[in-house]
């Protein structure tokens, strides 16, 4: 049975807990070092299917306050699709008025995740 361990830093919150993920035959058997549930979820995902929330900006038209609208993926997307998400947003412009949570681009790169506004404009 192939047993390996992987040392990670949890990125969920600024505490940055040091995690040790133990795998047996490529399957996660334990996560230690985390101080909350998010840490365990992160540890498991990071060694099998790492994901990230992508945050960026798109230009917004018709707002007297903002030139740029900050946006994020509403949940995490596969790490390898970060640049594809950026590419997909390259030509997107938002139209004011926009509220926090409004969808700016639906189902980005077929991830099933929407890109939403994080500011109102």
């Amino acid at each position, binding site marked *: 049975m192939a047993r390996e361990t992987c040392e990670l*830093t949890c990125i969920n919150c600024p505490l*940055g807990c040091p995690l040790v993920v133990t795998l047996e035959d490529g399957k996660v058997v334990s996560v230690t070092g985390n101080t909350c549930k998010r840490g365990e979820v992160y540890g498991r995902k990071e060694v099998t299917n790492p994901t990230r929330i*992508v945050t960026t900006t798109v230009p917004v038209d018709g707002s007297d306050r903002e030139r740029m609208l*900050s946006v*994020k993926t509403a949940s995490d997307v596969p790490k390898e699709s970060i640049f594809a998400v*950026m590419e997909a947003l390259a030509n997107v412009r938002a139209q004011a008025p926009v509220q*926090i949570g409004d969808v700016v681009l639906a189902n980005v790169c077929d991830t099933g995740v929407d890109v939403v506004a994080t*500011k109102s404009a």
Partner: protein
Amino acid sequence: MEQHDVVVVGGGPAGLAAAISAYEAGSTDVVVLERDVQLGGILNQCIHNGFGLHTFKEELTGPEYAARYEDRLKELGICCLMDTMVLDVSPERVVTAVNTDRGVFSIQAKSVVLAMGCRERPRGALNIPGFRPAGVFTAGTAQRLVNIEGQMPGKEVVILGSGDIGLIMARRMTLEGAHVACVAELMPYSGGLKRNIVQCLDDYGIPLLLSHTVTRVEGKRRVEAVWIAQVDEKLRPIAGTEKRYPCDTLLLSVGLLPENELSRAAGIELSPITRGPVVDERLQTSVEGVFACGNVLHVHDLVDYVSQEAAMAGRMSAQYAQGDSGEGSAARGIPLVAQGGVRYTVPAFIAPERMDQKTTVRFRVDNVYKNKFVCVYLDDQRIMRKKRQVLAPGEMEEVVLKQEHFAERDGVERIVVTLEEG
């Protein structure tokens, strides 16, 4: 003269939380003075996620975190004067400000909360030889250019200093199509949070060069290259280790300085270590009725802790404004002594007889330590011993002192916070 119960100087995360908690503590006559045209302070340009896990139990971006507080402020109908620059705070708590509507005006406040935040150490503080070409920015300026103005400062980037804003901008510039050659850090450890090294540098293969610094900036009109050398244990560049990095942009993330010009002019005692006011457990400064919180008090890593601290300052300022400061109000309390690798503590004084059930003492250490115990002594009596696997200067620490620690202990002369071997 116009009069108000509580005047809050600054409408960033600290000022917003302080104003809300002052109102909720019964001082409904609160005014926030903000020099920008919008509330939220630096959160507006911090578009990345990771805010609010402690406060809201969910992960928010900077603008979303600020919006939660702004919405609450509006709900309560707290008065905010925008585009208003505070010029002076007197020891008698007269706050003088200027804006285009009213010109120069003064407010007599019953209590004042200082929440002016901090600013970045600029290039001038660093003594890098070379010309003064375009292309040298502080990381925060670059962040504003990219996230608010929608302008890219450059394409080929070197970052000096591994503060969190520098790390965040390494990722941001990379996502926007720039190439970040490296992050050079003078110290043998990073100044930023571990999580930011992982998700901003490691994710994108950006090297972190510890014990390295920029020794020369090339270029007359625009940055053309920077030279980076390794430094020895005394932080002096080592001859022969210099390497040239062609680039058009140098970002500086070399520290934050609390913005205390107003405090200094008011005669408030400042700490030479934090560069912020010396406060007691109520977060009251050396001037009665003037409280401080957030990055103007000491630089934080986490906005959640700023909000917590500011809520305390707000509540205490309301209590003071209502003339209900309780017993022993004038006394500062028992001094806290930081030693054994602990650089400072906030607060610097605690009066057990007037403190809440619990008081959070925040501090930073002066180096990277492994497997140490954080210990607290009342005079020679140890009352707390807490194991920490890793302590680093870039990460703020805390201990919580409780009322019961002081029970049946009269005449304590000092509270020592120190690190000890395992």
